[in-house]
């Protein structure tokens, strides 16, 4: 048995590549002098490494689900798909950080290294199959995020954001571990494999201990995806940290958190038991609250970045809504939502970041009359805003529709109504940008350097999937359909 330990290492190549990449980047960075401005080899290496990881994950797809390293890691299509999304997000953010003026020139390379590190944490989380890998994944993700949030070290707000993030994060990790250790105490194992069979045989007292422990455990994950009682850090951190960092936070930790939430749900709560009812109730309440609070607070914001932060809270709520339907339908819906969420968030943040680099702030007014100066960019932003609201024929509509229809099929009418109402509310602040861009006159005629030909092309290419997924969504849905979870 011990000899077999490394037998399946071939399926772990993406993670190994990432670790090698991170170490390599640190070594390359060490060769540069402190005041050297142009550090392009870091970026080239990072992009090549990430693309190689992407390809390696593609080779992993389609195979039989497999638990490797004495069941602590699961490689299945579900986790691979989410890893693909995370790698794509990271590639885009690394490129964004190259020309963004929000990060200091000498710290950009550190940003890239930490982004790769967080990605490793995200990978660990997406395929965690015992409490140890889960905890390590969350902490790898968190510890690097704390540093990343305070990357603008001469800016008070950035330091404060990082500190706030670190302190809240430490407390929520402690609470999560308290819950985890109780779960271990009751079940007597840290493995996820085989746990589902134990749950129906538990006594009432054990159930009574287990349920609150899961609530505590949820605190840790809920913190990472900014679910509502634990969302207080999110807008401050999003506003305080540099825009590429914000973009990164809106994608990788959030998707990793959703992944682990799905994994936990389908490991512990597939069997009928009072616990399942309790968990569904918890998810119902939290997702409804997350959607509503995120949306309602987004209305009054003056800064686009902060508005996007609140909107990403509400999107996390919508993704959580599909968790109440335990089973393949919900998972398929959430996978599709994650794919569309990636592209929508990327485009919105790219444009915001470029506008902010020009003017030094990101108030709504800076977008006035964008259509007269950069028509393509204004159109792309409009497309993304419509898609975020959920207007057909764009991908955001299909994603929301999937979740809504499966909610109605599973008879969760209240949540479906709340989701529908929230979409209406969100239209207000999303379309506010569209109104400013189209109906107002521009404030100035100065050119925005960030909108060069290459960047415009990249933004257009990133917007294309929103159209394509909105119209030809059946193909990708059948793809997500294959991504069944691997549960013992």
């Amino acid at each position, binding site marked *: 048995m011990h000899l077999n330990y490394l037998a399946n290492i071939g399926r772990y190549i993406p993670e190994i590549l990432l670790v090698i990449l991170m170490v390599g980047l640190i070594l390359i960075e060490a060769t540069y002098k402190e005041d050297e401005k142009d550090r392009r080899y870091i970026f080239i290496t990072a992009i090549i490494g990430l693309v190689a990881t992407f390809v390696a994950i593609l080779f992993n797809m389609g195979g039989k689900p497999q638990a490797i390293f004495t069941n602590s890691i699961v490689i299945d299509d579900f986790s691979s798909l989410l890893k693909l999304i995370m790698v794509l997000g990271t590639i885009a953010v690394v490129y964004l950080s190259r020309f963004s003026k929000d990060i200091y020139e000498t710290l950009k390379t550190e940003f890239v290294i930490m982004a790769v590190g967080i990605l490793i944490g995200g990978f660990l989380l997406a395929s965690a199959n015992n409490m140890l890998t889960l905890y390590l994944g969350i902490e790898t993700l968190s510890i690097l995020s*704390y540093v990343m949030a*305070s990357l603008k070290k001469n800016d008070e*707000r950035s330091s404060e954001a990082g500190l706030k993030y*670190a*302190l809240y994060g*430490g*407390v929520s990790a402690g609470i999560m*571990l308290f819950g985890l250790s109780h779960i*271990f105490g009751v079940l007597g*194992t840290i493995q996820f494999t085989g746990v589902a069979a134990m749950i129906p045989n538990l006594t009432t007292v054990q159930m009574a201990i287990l349920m609150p422990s899961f609530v505590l455990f949820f605190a840790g994950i809920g913190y990472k995806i900014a679910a509502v009682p634990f969302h207080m850090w999110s807008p401050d951190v999003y506003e305080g940290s540099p825009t590429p960092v914000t973009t990164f936070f809106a994608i990788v930790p959030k998707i990793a958190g959703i992944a682990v939430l799905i994994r936990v749900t389908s490991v512990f709560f597939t069997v009928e038991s009072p616990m399942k009812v309790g968990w569904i109730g918890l998810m119902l309440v939290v997702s409804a609250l997350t959607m509503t609070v995120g949306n309602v607070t987004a209305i009054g914001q003056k800064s686009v970045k902060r508005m996007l932060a609140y909107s990403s809270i509400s999107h996390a709520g919508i993704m959580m809504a599909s968790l109440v339907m335990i089973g393949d339908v919900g998972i398929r819906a959430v996978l599709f939502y994650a794919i569309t969420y990636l592209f929508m968030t990327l485009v919105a943040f790219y444009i915001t970041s470029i506008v902010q680099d020009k003017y030094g702030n990101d108030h709504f007014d800076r977008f006035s009359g964008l259509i007269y100066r950069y028509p393509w960019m204004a159109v792309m932003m409009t497309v993304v805003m419509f898609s975020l609201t959920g207007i057909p024929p764009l991908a955001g509509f299909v994603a929301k529709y999937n979740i809504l229809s499966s909610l109605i099929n599973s008879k969760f009418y209240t949540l479906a109504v709340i989701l529908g109402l929230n979409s209406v509310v969100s239209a207000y602040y999303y379309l506010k940008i569209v109104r400013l861009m189209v109906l107002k006159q521009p404030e100035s005629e100065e050119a925005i350097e960030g909108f060069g030909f290459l960047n415009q092309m990249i933004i257009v290419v990133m917007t294309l999937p929103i159209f394509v997924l909105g119209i030809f969504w059946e193909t990708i849905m059948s793809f997500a359909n294959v991504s069944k979870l691997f549960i013992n």
Partner: protein
Amino acid sequence: MSSIYYYLAGFLFCTGLLGTIFKKDLISILLCLELMMGGVSLLTVLFSRSTGVLESQLLVFFMLIVSACEVAIGLSLIIALYRKKQTIYTDDIKIITE
């Protein structure tokens, strides 16, 4: 007899949690965070003893390492902020408002 230790673990955790909520200076908050982690580690070791499963002691090792990292990062962030604001009290630091 050993049930005393469960109470001790619970006490440590609760003290730490209350401390992180009510303390006003950042160093104390970090210390309380460590107290919390200490309680959790103790609890996990106790459960490992009572169930006879050793793998959770592995978890405890990692908890200790990771919480040490977390405190190192937290302290360096406090220093970074102290250089700007010359204070470590949470009441004086609130810059991001709205």
